């Protein structure tokens, strides 16, 4: 288990992605505060559990659909009125649609120490989900052993795609001339030494020079 020092204390309130609407030990589902505004696939987010305990999770899936599962979205636009015009013409859509995102828990911070393990309790329902700033990311990702749990992810998105998205997002956030990305890839090479084909697919999809 890694034990890095928390770079900054958890913020609550003003800056947040959304609110937890389903929760469990392995992650949570959150509803975005604004329609279509959600953290990126692979982004590291945080949610406070109590004053001394903060969960870290990686965004593993996003979706926008009707709040009522019985009401399917239908075509609203035309060649003359499309994209944002549709929302201007139907202001009620902001109230009947919602954007949700699922996360995979990858660690937590307790009493100022970061641990790459599942949090001891799930994030409470209706608690906020906050973004991680560069210092948070640097502190949490300093050691890369948590990538093992992401590689074992089972959900809507294939684990390699999730890990690749996470690596691209951290690399862009840290802006460190790919120093962290190099270390992360070496960790992956070690973790996937018996699965060369999957490793190649994963590494090819990172492609830092074109990101």
């Amino acid at each position, binding site marked *: 288990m890694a034990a890095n020092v928390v770079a900054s204390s958890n913020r609550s309130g003003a800056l947040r992605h959304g609110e937890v609407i389903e929760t469990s030990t392995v992650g949570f589902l959150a509803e975005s505060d604004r329609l279509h505004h959600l953290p990126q696939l692979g982004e590291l987010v945080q949610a406070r559990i109590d004053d001394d305990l903060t969960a870290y999770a990686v965004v593993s899936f996003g979706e926008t659909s009707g709040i009522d599962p019985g*009401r399917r979205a239908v075509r609203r636009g035309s060649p003359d009125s499309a994209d944002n015009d549709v929302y*201007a013409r139907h*202001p009620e859509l902001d109230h009947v649609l919602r954007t949700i995102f699922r996360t995979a828990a990858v660690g937590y911070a307790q009493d100022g120490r970061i641990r790459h393990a599942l949090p001891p309790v799930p994030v409470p329902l209706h608690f906020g989900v906050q973004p991680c700033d560069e210092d948070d990311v640097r502190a949490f990702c300093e050691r890369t052993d948590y990538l093992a749990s992401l590689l074992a992810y089972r959900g809507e998105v294939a684990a390699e795609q999730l890990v690749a998205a996470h690596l691209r997002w951290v690399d862009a956030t840290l802006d460190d001339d790919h120093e962290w990305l190099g270390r992360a890839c070496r960790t992956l090479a070690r973790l996937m030494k018996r699965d060369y084909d999957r490793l190649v697919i994963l590494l090819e999809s990172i492609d830092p020079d074109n990101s």
Partner: protein
Amino acid sequence: MTLDLARIAGQIAAMVADLHPDDQRERFAALEHTWETIDGADIRSRLDGAKHSFLLPAPQDSYNERHPLPAPREAYCVAATDGSFILPSRHNPARYYLLNTGLVRLEYGPEPRALLDSEPILKFGEDELMIGSPVHRIPVNGTNIGPKRAAEELRAAANLLADAPEPALALQDGTLILWALETLPEPVAAWTLPGFLEAMAWFRDYQIPLASYVSAPGTREIVNLMRIAICDYPPAGKKINCDECRGRILSEGHSPACDIIPEVTDRFFFESIEPLEPGERSAIFQSTSQILDRYCADGSTDFRIDYFYLNVGLEIGRVEIPHWVSKQPELVDFVHWAVYDQCERGRGYPVALQEAHELAVLSTADRLVMEIAIERELARHGIVLTYTGKDGSKRGRFV
């Protein structure tokens, strides 16, 4: 599944064949001809003192005019409300009824915005569950709560538009004519009508048009009018007397001229016989429902209900408006265009009414939540909820 569809499949086919008005096609020509030659002055004079039992529009000079869709508005505001309820149940120890009103206000234009909400009202206690005086007490039930709900919906719509930008329109689902009052006892009217008329007055006082939209209207007032127009008994120019005419069917084998008019609805008439184009509306007609006499307690005709038929693109709908609105051509144009626009945005039905309905409807889950809340509250008072035999048998089904 308890319905054995195979046993009634043959009857369903026969029923549908019977419903189809194709066999009346030869009678459509008579209807068409009558409509084209209808004489407002003749109808007016023949109906004065006539004896008939048809519900007809009030006499007017011109019936068969039609109006194209008015010019669109850049911006407008529409409010719609719709309600649903939970009725008192004798199977439940807590006696109450719940009215849940869905509230929608949509603003279109440079800064589009929406307000969607719902407003539950819980009524309990002897005073609120009983209508009327101590002498004549009527329990609130599924029939008499209808006009109460209509009054609540109208009040809620007025609240929604209290600070609305202009132009604004209030839309209601169904009819503005409280038909149920025709058969309900007087105390029910006293319980519901003042609130309804108070809200109607608010709209008039603030000059905010109010309209209701009836999808698939089943009314036949215009087709009934054709029966009057084609009547040859007694000869044109004389008073209509259906009683005498019908009496002669048996005694003399008389064949009433109006029997040629097919049994179709006004909707079918404006859809297939004298089709309105998409966006086009009929003339405005004035309802002569007797209930509307009660809307004129102060002697004013402002709250009498008028109506027109409108091709909203997908169907012929009926739009009802208070008389004070129909007297102002610019308001009629706005209602005409806005209802069409709402139907276009809502794929055939006003979008504001769709959303109001969605917010009003109480699902099985909502009803369960209400029950659980009551059950918990009873438990806090040391009362264990016991179900009646029938209710219990539905909850815990066994074989």
